[in-house]
């Protein structure tokens, strides 16, 4: 159980690292939000599961924390993405299509 | 395993100093405010390392939402003639 928990924590940390790496490497704001949200959400959830394995007494609290992360993290990312788009954030030259830009007449 | 905590402290302290310097020398006002918010969020983790969960919770509850919001609210109100002074 301890080893399994430890492995889960390491996997979570690896996903967090992936999120950080994506944040540094991706070309524009939207892609960075993508990498940031997904990888860090899964990373946090996995670490919390791992700690629940290491300390079974804490499972309930860790579950609640995971639930909150699951709801608040995508919400803040979406609001931020909308704001970035409205504020006219620069898109990477690789961008192929942007329906929203065309419709808002920018 | 407690030898990890000093390293964590050092990491947090470096990050806080970097954020504080951004807050002072940063280019734009929103980033300065955001950096100040980051200082208080990291301070909350530091308080937890210093074994004061009460203080850490206060800092997390207040530093994350309330203070940042107050600053951005006033900044949004006075936005029209943005004279971003910066250091003299």
């Amino acid at each position, binding site marked *: 159980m301890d080893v399994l928990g430890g492995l889960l924590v390491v996997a979570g940390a690896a996903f967090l690292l992936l999120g950080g790496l994506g944040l540094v490497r991706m070309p524009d704001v939207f892609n960075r939000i993508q990498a940031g949200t997904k990888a860090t959400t899964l990373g946090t959830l996995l670490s919390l599961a791992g700690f629940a394995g290491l300390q079974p007494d804490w499972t309930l609290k860790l579950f609640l924390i995971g639930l909150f992360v699951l*709801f*608040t993290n995508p*919400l803040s990312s*979406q*609001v931020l993405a*909308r704001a970035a788009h*409205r504020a006219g954030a620069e898109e990477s030259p690789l961008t192929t299509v942007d329906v929203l830009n065309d419709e808002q007449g920018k | 395993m407690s030898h990890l905590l000093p390293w964590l402290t050092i990491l947090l302290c470096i990050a806080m100093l970097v954020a504080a310097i951004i807050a002072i020398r940063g280019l734009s006002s929103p980033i300065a405010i955001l950096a100040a918010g980051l200082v208080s969020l990291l301070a909350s983790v530091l308080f937890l390392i210093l074994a*004061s*969960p*009460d203080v*850490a*919770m*206060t800092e997390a*509850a*207040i530093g994350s*939402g*309330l203070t940042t*919001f*107050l600053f951005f*609210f*006033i900044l*949004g*109100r*006075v936005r*029209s003639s943005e004279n971003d002074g910066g*250091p*003299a």
Partner: protein
Amino acid sequence: MIKRAVALVLLLMLGGIFATLMLGYTPDSELNLTARYYAERTAADLGAANIVTAIVVTYRGLDTLGEVTVLFLSASIVGLVLASNRRPALRVRTPVGELLTTGARFLVPLILLLGVYVFVNGHLTPGGGFQGGAIIASGVLLLLLADPLRHFSHHVIATVESLAGLFYVAIGLAGLFLAGGFLDNRLWPIGTLGELFSAGAIPLIYSLIGLKVGAEFSSMLASLSETEEL
């Protein structure tokens, strides 16, 4: 330029003072006299598991009353300073997206309940009235972010605030007559360490402080939100 040089010189002097303070500092290895008293007596005398709470609410209860008053004063002054230009109807430049409104409607009750949890359990877990009040104000803040034109009733906020304050002082006075002194928590038996209904009046007092602090922060937010865009 001269200003900056003067600032640097001042800061160098201040830094020197700080450095000598740091060099002269040796950490204690034993608790000092006051802390030892609190550590030894809190559990037996007051029945509170969180010693910081015991200090804030009971041992230094009068100071906390003063602090809440200072906060009340600063909230009132913020209201007063911003009072002259209240406009009923403002417009928002960018409407709020549906995602944020739905998210706020979903999350606000949970945030408020978390605030209640934090201040009701102030004597057992980290947290208490000040943290709980700040969390409740954060719930109000999320409402405000999701609907910038929302109108908060100053009347209700003021009523909650003053009722909480009134009961706080009343319990303090009751302590003077029924127990050992002003704000003494031993109005009724202190119960078993670690249960929710323990530590005498501490959960009640801290809940009242929580409501009062929450109302004060909310009133600051409400008076700010009614200002006009310049």
